[in-house]
């Protein structure tokens, strides 16, 4: 069975339409839901096999992935995630990132942290961090600094509300085609952090506004891109009267 781009696919189907359009491309990038088994003896690759249900997508020039509705997060390197600190041990915070295992966040992985100067984070706090190690056999490892040792946007999240949603919604909100956040920011100032692990954190200067923002973002899940302005208009009308 061969899967076609843009159609639904099921595990076991193979990807066959590679490299037809542009002969100069030598590499094909396999994304989520695709796997290529390497036959050790001959240096040939087997055809890429689909490993989950969904719609096969292609991004130019040659990236293939399977798009499916998903709530469970599978860690992968360089993802930005929101975690909840569940335990503190001698050297690590153990952080729940909605994955099958808790992730490790070192005390030293914060800006300006030393052995004596530890970050003040308690159990139950939210941290926005990056995944630096995502190996199937090891716990994922997180950091709250970039490669230059600066924290950037990463770090602890104070106040506001965090809510869980499907990973598709987070992708949708972050998608360039989706003008939701852009339109919302024209209406009112607010802070938003979207963790690709299916968690979104919002904060604004009033509780009611934060509640409305949360609701609008959750509504976006069932709204097509073109109709985003409608839900933002609804948000704006409900917002009137709130300082």
């Amino acid at each position, binding site marked *: 069975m061969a899967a076609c781009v843009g159609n639904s696919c099921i595990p076991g189907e193979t990807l066959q339409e590679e490299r037809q359009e542009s002969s100069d491309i030598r590499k094909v990038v396999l994304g989520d839901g695709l796997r290529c088994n390497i036959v050790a003896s001959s240096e040939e690759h087997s055809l890429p096999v689909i490993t989950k249900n969904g719609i096969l997508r292609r991004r130019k020039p040659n990236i293939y992935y399977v798009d499916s509705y998903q709530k469970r997060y599978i860690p992968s390197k360089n993802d930005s995630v929101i975690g909840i600190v569940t335990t503190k041990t001698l050297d690590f915070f153990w952080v*729940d990132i909605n994955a099958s295992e808790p992730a490790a966040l070192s005390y030293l992985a914060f800006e300006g942290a030393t052995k004596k100067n530890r970050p003040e984070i308690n159990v139950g*706090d939210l941290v926005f961090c990056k995944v630096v190690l995502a190996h199937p056999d090891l716990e994922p490892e997180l950091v709250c600094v970039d490669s230059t040792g600066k924290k950037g946007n990463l770090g602890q999240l*104070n106040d506001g*509300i965090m809510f*869980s949603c499907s990973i598709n919604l987070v992708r949708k909100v972050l998608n360039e085609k989706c003008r939701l956040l852009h339109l919302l920011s024209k209406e009112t100032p607010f802070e938003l952090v979207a963790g690709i692990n299916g968690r979104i954190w919002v904060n604004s200067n009033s*509780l009611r506004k934060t*509640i409305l923002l949360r*609701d609008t973002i959750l509504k976006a899940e069932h709204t097509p891109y073109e109709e985003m302005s409608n839900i933002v208009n609804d948000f704006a009308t409900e917002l009137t009267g709130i300082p």
Partner: protein
Amino acid sequence: MRETILSNNEKSFVEKSILEGLRVDKRNLNEFRNLGLFFGQDVGSVICTLGATKVFAQVSCELSSPRTSRPNEGTIFINVEMGPMAAPHLEVGFPLSDSCIQINRILERTLRESRCVDLESLCIIAEEKVWNLRVDIAVLNHEGNVMDCSCIAAVAALAHFKRPDVTTTGDGEFIIHSPAEKDLVPIVLHHYPICVTYALFDDGKIPVADPTALEERVSEASLVLAVNSYKELCCMNLTGVSLTSPHLILRCSEMAAERSRRIVEFIKSILEEDEAQRAKGNLPKGFAESIALSNLPSNFHNEEIVEKIEQPEIVGIAESSSHGETSDDEVKIIDDNTVTSGKWIEVTSEDEDSSSDEEMPEQTNTRTSQDAPKTEKKLHSNESSEEEKTIVLK
């Protein structure tokens, strides 16, 4: 799977917003989520939805011998199941989780110990054969307030259920008629007790109606009141750690009584609709409608929270007693047919918004006083219960 730890941000946000009279799903403190009731093809099968919470209830009956302590009464058994389908952190099988046992126990107190089901009418031959009712409740989705949802489902299922008719013959035998021979007989319910849950916040000062899963986790305590449409308190349960006052409990019970009256009306209207559809031969086509309705929470109501409710007082103790007939003849089972079914009724969810809450105080006084005797007559026609004591809130 372990339950995800509650983050400090969520906790403090919920607490702060409750203090300001706001809730995360945009409801008022006194507002309930949309209620939906859907009957299945079989009698006594119901899906109840309360917002995103969804519960399935099925009543069944079988013949068994009565308890020696109560030889002329049938029995009622309640079984609640909450598995990982309801929420991933819930475990399946034994040992049952604490929350599951708690819900089961409160339901038993509400349905069995309030004696709302006329158990004597379930007797076929005293000391020998009685009907044994079984209410199976499966929580399909846990999004907070499973208690109310399962109670409504159980009551609606009991009201919807019909058992085969039985005739006793003089020579000590009995005949169980198939639905084709004789119409099925409904279970006699004296009253419909409805559980109403309040989550308590701010040292037990603020009651929040119909808490969501998040609010349940943040709240200090939860107060479950089972009230019937005659404003009789059937069961009360307070769990958690919180200071509370008799004042608050009385205020909550008054609000619960109003809520209960409306739900009972709702259940009755839907039962009637279902009955009419079944009479026409339109069978329900399954529970598809209940799925279409479960969507994101909506409806923002800006009305002020109804806080001012007259102080309820405990006025007195009502006693009712009547005599029932029991048949002492002997019986033989002839037919044990399954139940054929009627028609599907689709129910749009009832609005429990605060706009109608404002009419609450007057309605309570006029309506219940008129309606109660009428329904009572109908319900009590077959009644045969012992003395029952209930507190009346006025």
